[in-house]
Every structure is written in C-alpha cells, then in structure tokens.
C-alpha cells in the first residue's frame, strides 16, 4: 500500500530570499535560556523556532512539543562568509571565467564544440554527465588570455578550506560574490550550473539559516543542569563572533582587527557545516571531544543516511532467545504466550464480517482485541470498562487489532542477515515458555545455534504483505538455496546420526520400538515384519517416504536406492539427507514442497528419537588407540621425517629442481609442506581402516553428522604441521633463524618448524604445545580479519548490484533500464531451481 508518490527530488542551493522566506525569526542574542530557565526571545532556542519543553506552546504554530514540526530561523551576519563545502566549486568557477569581463575562458568555437558534445551524450546518462563536467573544467583551465576582453588572467591560488588569493591579496567573500554574480547565465550553463536553482553567488552567506530547536534538542541532566546540543553550541559561537565583529565595525576599529574577526567568523561557520574540514582545527567541546556538526550528522555508519534512513525501527516486532523444539514443524515458530498476546494483527471490519468482529471484540480472554481503530485513524485501547461502548460504535471500515493466534503468518529473522533466507515466513504456534521455538532443520539457513542466540519476529500488517509472506517467503519455498540450488533446510548432526543408525543393513527393531518411532512421525501402521518377527530399520524409514517414490544416487558412502517408496539398498547419510543433499530435489519435483516439508519434519522427529533409542554415543574410548595403531603412528612419522631429510639432503647437494617462480629454497619448503600434509592424510586413512566399524566417532565422521577424519586423526594420532597466518611453516622467533632457543640455528627439520607429533588425546610436549598455540592464535587473528574484509566486500557488491532485476522478456536491467544481460544467466534458469548448479557447469 502506497499513499504518496514522489516523482523526483531536485537538489539546489537556498537563495537569501528563500532563507528569509522560510525563517520565522531573526536571531540576535547569542544565548539560550534566561535565569528563570525560559528560552530567550531572539536567542537560539526562541520559542518561535518550536518548543521541546513539555507545557510550552510554539509561538509560530501554536502546537505543543510533540506536534510542532519546528521552524527555521536565521542569523544576519555582518560580514559575508563562504560556504566552505562549496569552495572547490567556487574555485572551479573562478578559474574558468575572466577576472575582468567575467566571461567564460573559451572562444566561441570551443563553446560550440562543448554544446555539441553535451547534446548527444549528457541527456541519456548522468554517469557520463559528470565526466563531461570534469572535461569542461579541464578544457577551461588551459585558457590563459581571455578570448573576449584579452585580459591576461592572474594566477588564482586556492588553499583549503576557504582562502582565495591573487598574489598576496586575499579575495574577500563579498568580492567573490560580486565576481560570480557577474557571470552570464549562458556561461554558467556551459559549466553545467543552473543559476535559477544553484546560483553560485548564493554560496556566499549573509543570512545563515538556523535549524529548528527540535533538530538540536537540549537535554536536562539529572542534576537539573541543561546540556545543549553540539549544533547549538556552534551557533552560539557564530553569534558571539558576529556580535563582536559588529561592535568593532561600529566602533571604527582598525581594519586588521576587523579582518581577524571576519576570518574567525568564517572559521566558526566552516566548523558549523563540517567540523572535519581539512585545514581547520576541529572545534571542541569543553571536555575535549570534537563537536558533531552538520556533516558529521549525515556521514558514515552512525550518520543519518545509514543509521536512520536506510534502516528504520519498526513496531509489531518481538525479540527473544531461541531454543529447539523438534515438535514444531519447519514452517512454524513457537511463540511465547506473553509475546502472542502483545503483538497484534489487524482485522479489517467489513459488512460481511461484522458479526465475527463483534464476537471477537466481546471476548475477554486470550485471543481478543487489544485496540480498535476508528475510520479517522484514532486508536482506542479495548478495556473491560469500555468494551460495551466500543461494541456499539463498531462499524465497517473500522480496524480491530487482534492478538496473535496459531496460524498467523510472521516473519522470522536472525542477524546478520547475510542472505535472503535469513528472513523467512513462519506460521505462529503459541506455546508456553519465554523463548521462540524453532525446528532444528531451520537453524541452518539462519546460521543459528541455541547457546543464547536471539531472533526477531515481525508481524506483517497489510493483507498484501501477509499474502506475499505466505506465497513467497514461506519456509517450505526456501528449502533450496538461491546460491546453488542445494537444500539449505535439512537435518544435521543427531538427525543424520539417527538415520545412519536406523538404516544400517542388519538393523532390526522390536514391535514396541517400531510403533513408538512411527507414531512420532504420525504413522499408525506397521511395515511387514521380517521372518524373525522383528522390523527392519530400513522398512521403518521407508514408511516416511511417499508410496511410489523412486530415487537413486551414488553417495560417498555407497549407492542408495529407493524403489516404490522402499529403501532397498544403501545407508542414509548426509549426502542424501543432510545439507545440499540429492534426494530432496527428486522429492520436490515429484511431490511438491508441502510433501517435502512434512518429510523433513516427520523424519527428523523419528531420527532424533532413534538416535536416542539406539544409544549411539561417543566417549574418550573412541579416541584412545591401541599398541598396534601407536606403532603405525610412529612409523608414519618416522617415514615422513626420513623422506623430508632426503629432500633436505638433495637441496643441500643442489639436486632439487625448483618450481616456476620460486627459488630453490622456497621450492624445498613447498615440497616439505606437501610431504608433511601427506603424512597427516596417511595417518587419517590408517586410523579409519584400523578402527573400522563400531567406532562411533568414525561413524559420526562417515555419516557426515559431525566431525571429519582430520579431527579424529588429530585427536588420536598426531596434530601435524601447525601453520602461520601466511600459510607457511612457523619460522619466526630468533635472529639466528629459529623458533625457540633450543633449536639449532637454520634448522628446517619438521619438528623445528612446528610439526607436532603428539595428539590431543596423548597430550603435547611443551614445545609442541607452543607451536600449536602459535597456529591457534594465527587462525583466531585471521578470523577477525576475514569477517571485516568479507563484510565490506558484501556491502560493496550489494550496493553495486541491488538495482538489477529480471524483466518480462527475461533480460536483466537496472531500474534505469540499462541492459545488463539480454537473457538472465544465458538460459534464464533460476539458480534456486537449477540442479545443474555445479561450478563446472558453466
């Protein structure tokens, strides 16, 4: 719903006349409050500029503090000053025009060439317009002698922030104003300046506009002391100097004193506009803090643009800690009753639902009405005292604000909102407790865990917004990531482990167990029992599938085959059930999103239950190694060291072949690193082979539920090479090229450069612990560095690409109709729905 339309916004400079027109008061007293604590008339908090104290009435509009919009005033400066932010623009103009006749320093031919060029190009593209502008200035600069009056141009020197000199003589603001005012309209237009809207002579300020008080409210401290806003402080400074200047002029003070004060006035005005202007010392608060003046209010992350305008605060929202609940469906969110009874959804009263509306309004307990909004927009709180009264008043066109109930659509969000699935639409499920409850499968797209994470909930208010949320943002439509088309909403960790255990080939369950599991999934019939009267785990899993579902895939664990809704071969692992799995795509193509949603929900309940039931667990015993494996570990390390020593010997004999772009020494380093890494992989393979089945930690890694072989290897065998931030081996430390004092100088053997031969289980030697700490610190520092870098990359990318969207002809254009792609991605296929989203599929 959109009420107002803004066609365009044109920027310009306020003329002195306009300033006088919008100003309601000429301010003359450089002070704020009098002894009684009331605003001084003609002071900076003059009551004609609006009021901020409750109880006072605005002398301009008669409204009170909350309703008065505020009104501008102005200060008459006794001597004009330059607008410092525009001094570069003034410099460009002065440099481009004659000092005698004030015409542009271009002969008619050059002028013609410029106008011809701008007719063809600037119209279409503002981007080129700005380039054009620069070219014009550049072209103008080269003129030495005025082509019209033949006057030789003196050299104009500009120095930051507001000084213009010809030789030793400083140009005063009023001189500058006279000069630019004499430039003809045609010549200004050649410089791309519209004198009607942005006349450069207006950049020399005689009347300074003073913003309303509610732009710069003063705060009353607990002690009763008033503390003024930074802007007010600066305006007081300006007025004080202005007054002093006036007194000196009237008293006929010598020119030097007047000029000094004039310059001081210029300084204060400059600082008022931008306290970070280069070339001036920043104005400071009594405490030594630099003042935040106009430019500082707009700039940067905490400035008006990024903090208040690009991101806004909202009503109808809630935030609390999240926790898991496997009994909440993936497209639901458990909302605490406290929150559900405070948040509201509008109920639009019409002729046809008037009875229902009255019934709601009459209800006294939980799902009831909190506010009633009349046709004129007046909001009335519904209380027991006025309920009967409101029941009489209610009529079509009224809006009732109803408490949240089960099934209402809400938007759920976790920050940082890095991708669009960080905000999804869930259906409300009102629950006791004080936390939001979500299904574990939806934690993945939000990147949430439950160690105290908080999430936000928003209630869409208009019917359009609710419809959009339901049809476009619902969780079930976000199962596949727009990044690569892989499933992003899927089970993980315990769920994967449960399925892995359940679908082992020989897994049998008793009838009791089978009934318990299936009833959790809402299935009230049993599969055919096996000959021994027990039920196969795979058959139980098959009950969750659609009856005629067919699916086949070769996973890293082995082939998985589902035929006519029955798992006939293979074990369910992460590859077919976890993130980015292959099975969900097939299921959604055959049965749709709703069926897939229910499969994820029911199967995750069942999987969790079976993980518990089967007693799958890990402990230290999983990481302890026997004598045989210990021997293998020692062998691997010794073999590797022997090989590395061999390479070092070859290097010393200069028999080693260097890599391209690398010195011999660097090549050796690369070879050693490769060899040491190989040892770790070797150890991992050996470990998995030795432990084999029955080790839950290995099972966890293999099923993809948690951990990988490298983790296991580091816990049981040895940690391996520790890396530094730059990716090489650890080498820094002593001047004699060694890491620690007991290491021989220049020793490049593995253990001297951060290779750790012990494991987390066995514990490390002090030296190895040190090496490990070097690596850990490096990765911690690096992580901090990377988040900042990638965050900035994201900000730049999104800013550059946010205006692009797909048109009806499947082309991609920006909002100004610039063609980016003729057909999106070359084939118009949506990445979300694309199964071909493999990196090499280009």
């Amino acid at each position: 719903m959109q009420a107002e339309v803004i066609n365009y916004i044109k920027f310009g400079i306020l003329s002195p006349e306009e300033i006088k027109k919008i100003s309601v008061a000429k301010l003359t007293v450089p002070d704020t409050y009098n002894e009684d604590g009331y605003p001084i008339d003609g002071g900076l908090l003059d009551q004609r500029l609006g009021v901020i104290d409750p109880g006072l009435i605005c002398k301009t509009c008669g409204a009170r503090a909350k309703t008065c919009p505020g009104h501008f005033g102005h200060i008459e400066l006794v001597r004009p000053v330059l607008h410092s932010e525009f001094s570069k623009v003034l410099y460009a103009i002065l440099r481009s025009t004659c000092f005698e006749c004030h015409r542009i320093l271009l002969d008619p031919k050059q002028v013609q060439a410029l106008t011809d060029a701008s007719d063809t190009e600037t119209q279409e593209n503002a981007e080129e317009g700005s380039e054009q502008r620069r070219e014009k200035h550049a072209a103008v600069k080269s003129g030495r002698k005025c082509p019209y009056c033949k006057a030789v141009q003196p050299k104009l020197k500009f120095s930051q922030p507001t000084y213009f000199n010809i030789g030793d003589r400083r140009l005063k603001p009023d001189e500058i104003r006279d000069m630019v005012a004499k430039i003809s309209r045609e010549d200004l237009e050649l410089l791309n300046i519209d004198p009607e809207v942005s006349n450069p002579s207006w950049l020399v300020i005689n009347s300074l506009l003073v913003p309303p008080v509610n732009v710069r409210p003063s705060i009353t401290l607990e002690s009763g002391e008033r503390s003024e806003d930074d802007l007010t402080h600066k305006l007081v400074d300006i007025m004080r100097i202005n007054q002093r200047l006036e007194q000196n002029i009237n008293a006929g003070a010598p020119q030097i004193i007047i000029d000094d004060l004039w310059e001081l006035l210029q300084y204060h005005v400059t600082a008022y506009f931008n306290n970070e202007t280069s070339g001036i010392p920043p104005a400071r608060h009594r405490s030594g803090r630099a003042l935040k003046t106009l430019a500082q209010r707009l700039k940067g992350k905490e400035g008006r643009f990024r903090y208040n305008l690009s991101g806004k605060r909202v009503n109808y929202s809630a935030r609390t800690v999240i926790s898991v609940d496997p009994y909440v469906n993936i497209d639901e969110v458990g909302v605490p009753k406290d929150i559900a009874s405070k948040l509201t959804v509008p109920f639009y009263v019409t002729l046809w639902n008037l009875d229902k509306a009255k019934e709601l309004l009459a209800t006294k307990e939980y799902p009831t009405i909190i506010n009633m909004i009349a046709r004129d927009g007046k909001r009335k709180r519904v209380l027991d005292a006025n309920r009967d009264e409101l029941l009489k008043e209610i009529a079509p066109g009224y809006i009732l604000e109803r408490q949240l109930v089960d099934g209402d659509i809400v938007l759920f969000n976790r920050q940082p909102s890095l991708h669009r699935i960080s905000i999804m639409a869930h259906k409300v499920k009102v629950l006791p407790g004080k936390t939001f409850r979500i299904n574990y499968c939806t934690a993945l797209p939000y990147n949430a865990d439950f160690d105290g994470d908080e999430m936000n909930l928003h209630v869409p208010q208009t019917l359009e917004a609710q419809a959009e949320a339901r049809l476009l943002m619902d969780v079930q439509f976000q199962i596949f990531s727009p990044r690569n088309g892989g499933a992003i909403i899927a089970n993980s960790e315990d769920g994967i482990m449960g399925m892995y255990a359940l679908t082992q080939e020989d897994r049998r369950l008793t009838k009791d167990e089978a009934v318990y599991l299936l009833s959790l999934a809402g299935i009230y019939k049993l599969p055919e029992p096996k000959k021994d009267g027990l039920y196969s785990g795979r058959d139980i899993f098959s009950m969750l599938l659609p009856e005629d579902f067919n699916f086949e895939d070769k996973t890293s664990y082995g082939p998985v085959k589902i035929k006519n809704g029955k798992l006939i071969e293979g074990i369910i692992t992460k590859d077919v059930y976890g993130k980015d799995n292959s099975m969900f795509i097939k299921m959604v193509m055959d049965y749709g999103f709703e069926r897939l949603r229910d499969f994820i929900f029911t199967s995750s309940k069942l999987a969790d239950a079976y993980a518990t039931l089967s007693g799958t667990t890990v402990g230290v015993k999983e990481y302890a190694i026997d004598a045989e494996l210990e021997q293998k570990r020692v062998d691997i390390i010794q073999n590797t060291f022997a090989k590395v020593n061999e390479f070092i010997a070859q290097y010393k004999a200069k028999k080693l072949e260097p890599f391209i772009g690398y010195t011999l020494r660097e090549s050796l380093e690369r070879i050693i690193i490769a060899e040491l890494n190989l040892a770790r992989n070797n150890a991992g393979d050996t470990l998995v082979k030795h432990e084999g089945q029955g080790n839950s930690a290995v099972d966890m890694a293999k099923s993809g539920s948690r951990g990988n072989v490298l983790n296991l290897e580091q816990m049981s065998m040895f940690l391996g090479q520790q890396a530094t931030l730059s990716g090489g081996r650890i080498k820094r430390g002593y001047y004699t090229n060694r890491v620690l004092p007991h290491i021989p100088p220049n020793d490049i053997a593995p253990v001297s450069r951060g290779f750790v031969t012990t494991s987390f289980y066995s514990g490390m030697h002090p030296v190895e612990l040190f090496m490990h700490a070097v690596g850990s610190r490096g990765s911690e520092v690096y992580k901090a560095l990377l988040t900042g870098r990638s965050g900035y990359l994201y900000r730049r990318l999104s800013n550059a690409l946010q205006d692009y969207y797909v048109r009806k002809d499947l082309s991609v254009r920006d909002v100004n109709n610039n063609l980016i792609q003729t057909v999106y991605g070359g084939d118009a296929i949506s990445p979300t729905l694309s199964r071909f989203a493999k990196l090499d599929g280009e």
Partner: protein
Amino acid sequence: MANTVNTSSKYIVDYGEPVGMIAAQSLGEPGTQMILRAFHFAGIESTIATSGLPRIVELVDARKKPETPITYVYLEGEYAKNINKAEVVLKKISEVKMSSVVRRVLENFSKGIIKLVLDTQALKANDLTPGQLSQKVAKKLDAATKVDSDGNILIKLKTKKLTEVRSISVKLMKDVVHGVEGAGKAMLQKDTKSGEFYIIAAGSNTEGIIGIEGVDKSRIYTNDVFAMYRQFGIEAARNTLVRELVTTLKEQKIRVDPRHLMIIADAMTYSGFIKGVGRHGLSGQKQSVFAKAAYEETVKHLVNAAAFSEIDNMRGVTENILVGKQIPIGTGSVHLAIKKEDMQKVKPESKHKK
C-alpha cells in the same frame, strides 16, 4: 513458485526477481568461509596464484594488475608436439633479468665504473654472449662498455656521484636481457590429457607474447582481466572475470551458481569498460544522488548535487527506502490498472442483506 515443480518452463527465473542482490548475497555470504592462504599443493599453478577472498576482492575491485599474473601460452602445430621446438618458444618468452646472468656487481664510485662479473653458465643457457650483453648495456645506458679479458663487462659511467652510480647499478639489475619484458619467468608444461606442450608464464604481457612464432593466438589466456581486455576486448574480459571467479570459488570448495558470477561480471563490463564494484566504479557512478550519498562519501555527493542542480528520479532501491516508499523491484514492480470505462461498471454493493 508453484507447489510442484515438474516442467522445464517452471525452472525459468521469476519476473522481477532481484537477481543482482541475490548474486551479491551468494558471493558475500560464504565470504567468511573462505580460507585466506592455506596450504595448497595441487599443481604448480595453484602454488603461485593468489586465491580465496583476496583474489575475489582483487577481481571484483577491477584492480589494474593482479597480485600474481599468470599467462597460459598454448602452441601451434609442431611446436606443441615437439619438446625441442617448444623450448625454443619458451626461451623467447621467458623473462631473464640482468640480475640472473650477473654473479657480482662491483662498483667503483671514485672512477664511476661498474664491473659486472657474469655467470657464464646462465649466460649460455640464455644464448647470450658477453659481447651482446655489453652492447645492450651500452645502448641502454648510453655509456662506454667493454668486455675485459676475464669475460666481465666494464661500464664507464658519465657520473661519479655515489648515489647516481648506485641507482644506475640497481636499475641495471632489473633490466630484462632476454625474453619478453613483463612476461615473467616461464616454464614448459605438458598437458596430461592431450600430451601437448604449453607454457605458463608468471606475468601478463600478452601483447608481447602473442606475436612470437609458434604461439597459438586463439588460445592464449591470462588471469589478468585488463590484459585480456586490451588484447581481445570487453567480452573476453567478461568471460575471464567469470572464469576466474568460478575457479577461485571452486578451489575453496564453495558452490556458487555461475549465473550469479555472470551477473557480477556483466555488471562490471556492460558499459564497455571494466568497472569495479566500489566507490570509484559501479556504486560511485549511480544516477541517484541518494544512493550515492547513502553508500560512501555522503557529503561530497550531496554538495555536488546541490551545486549542479542534480535531480534524483527516485527509481532505485536505496532512494525509495530512504523516503519510505515501496521499492520498484520484485512485487513492487507490478501495478494493477483498470480501464476508465470498466471503472464505471463497478457499482457499490447495496446494503448487506442477512
């Protein structure tokens, strides 16, 4: 999006989909998962090239020169099959600096003489004689040179000033004495599949390499986007961008649909020039004053807008968010319309009857 997806037409991207934003998110979201410079040992190439986030940033910024330029030079006909012929091409390309054929530099500051003690082995490997080298130096420095009895080069400089002599000798060491300047060190490689020989060079002077006999001009490739642009034009630059982004992400095992990367590459190149995505590129050259002001350099953009009476047409996303209007993308890009005549047919419904 329909409930069941089963026909190919359903794979088509939705109207109004903010594909640019999705592309940005698809590259931005996995950014934190990227590894900076971890161990990688696969091939020779990956040991040299910048990878991970720094490489992505470099590409997207449109830096004039990559940190580690690499050129792949494929060879024509016999050159690709015969190792001897291939080596001839290799020698022509591979950049040899003065420092690698000189064993020692002896400077006599009082006389203004530099003595180069040559590495005869290295000289031979590059088919150079001391005489040729001496002539080259003479030409380059415009100074008298001669080869002494030990085969060393003596350079008589015009200056005797200590600082000047030193700066000349330092500069001299960086001079390219053989091969293509800017091509970097090159190495011969054998394609394991086709068995053909090709050359990898640690530089990106494609202009210099492409003219050499035996080089297959149609297959030369470099990871330097600007070199590709200069050599083959904007479309080639676009494809290079996509290819480099794809390989960088693939290396990190981050799966991103290539369509997203194409949008980024197209955005950077559709104007006919390569523009980065930052303040000096795409974002800084937007039409809307508000969009620019909300991004970076707020005050500068507002001041320019005022001085030159710029108009913001309120068409983009940022501008409309700022003023609280609906954005003109996605569901905000469609409007309902009704013909005037049809409007009259609609009659307000009479009182509700019960």
